């Protein structure tokens, strides 16, 4: 390093730009108009950042936004946005209905006279990451827990030992990643060892 360089002030890292993201669609608010939840985005922005709301949705903003697009293109864009929004809502509704009719089963399975495992399935319908849930069970009970496919080809979590009541409580108390499963959608089942 030359003497000249050494005497210059210590270089400073450039600070990051703090970008605001829409809490509804996750885009920067200037892009909400291209998302599928524009009316909800607008509601959010209006209540949280009224200054930005004016910047993006005032009469002049809407005028200048057209940029090099023709009015016809813009109308088409708006129609498509409305269609997209309706579709996204219908999809979200259907998903919610499906969720609410899904069941989580906690099954106590007897492997030997005094040995049990607990199988839990149906958590994925509630958007719960099975790998993370298995890890949580393993840590909580200091035992083995894994994600496997059951006989029907569906993913389930198998925890060593009889922890079915504890698992039920954890789901009810929404511990860690176990969030959003209504108690009435959880059932406890016992599977006895088949007599051979």
């Amino acid at each position, binding site marked *: 390093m030359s003497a000249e360089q050494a005497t210059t002030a210590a*270089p400073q890292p450039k600070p*990051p*730009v*703090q970008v605001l993201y829409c809490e509804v669609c996750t885009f920067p608010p200037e*892009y909400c108009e*291209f998302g599928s939840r524009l009316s909800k985005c607008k509601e959010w922005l209006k209540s949280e950042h009224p200054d930005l709301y004016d910047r993006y949705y005032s009469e002049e903003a809407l005028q200048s936004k057209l*940029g*090099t697009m023709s009015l016809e293109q813009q109308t088409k864009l708006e129609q498509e946005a409305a269609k997209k929004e309706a579709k996204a809502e219908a999809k979200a509704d259907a998903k919610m209905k499906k969720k609410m009719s899904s069941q989580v089963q906690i099954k106590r399975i007897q492997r030997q006279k005094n040995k049990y495992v607990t199988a839990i399935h149906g958590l994925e319908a509630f958007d719960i990451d*099975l790998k993370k849930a298995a890890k949580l069970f393993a840590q909580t009970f200091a035992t083995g827990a894994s994600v496997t496919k059951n006989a029907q080809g569906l993913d389930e979590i198998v925890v060593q030992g009889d922890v079915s009541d504890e698992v039920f409580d954890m789901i009810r108390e929404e511990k860690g990643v176990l969030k959003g499963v209504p108690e009435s959608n959880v059932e406890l089942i016992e599977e006895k060892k088949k007599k051979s």
Partner: protein
Amino acid sequence: MFKKFQPSTDISGQTAVKSSVQRSLRAGLLSQWKIDPDTLESIWPKKENITLVKCRDHISIYALNGEPLFFQHFDGPLYPTLRLLHKYPFILPVVRVDRGAIRFLLAGAHMMCPGFTSKGGWLPPPEEALPAGVAVAIHAEGKEHAIGIGITKLSTEDIKKVNKGVGVEVVTHLGDDLWALQKV
């Protein structure tokens, strides 16, 4: 690249990265991005180890404390994630598409030359022309923040000259599955 990318099935595993490899990654970032060592240090401090998240189709995502920072396809250019680019917009050269191209881009389409050469688009002037095969920040007419990141398929001068077909391939954009992957 991140269309129908499902973390549960498309991520095959996470591994630690050897320190020699971390050094060469750091050197790669310094040579490929317009970034000074101090700013890079504030993004990825030397004493912190980066994790390699291996994905399908030879996509490698590099994450720091679970936050994806940059990624690579085979041994191609190192791309920042769009969120990182938003924080440090100067690290990649800029191209801009017109407003009409926005919805196509957000639907996962590659960007055709006319989107850059029309009135609302923008390409660097001849003296700052970019060759084919480099990472670019894709901005959009009337918008402040980048909408996506791409790789030039033609040089920017050829995009102007040829003016048809794909000019820039989009590797990640607002709302794709990498955008949704905030934590790994």
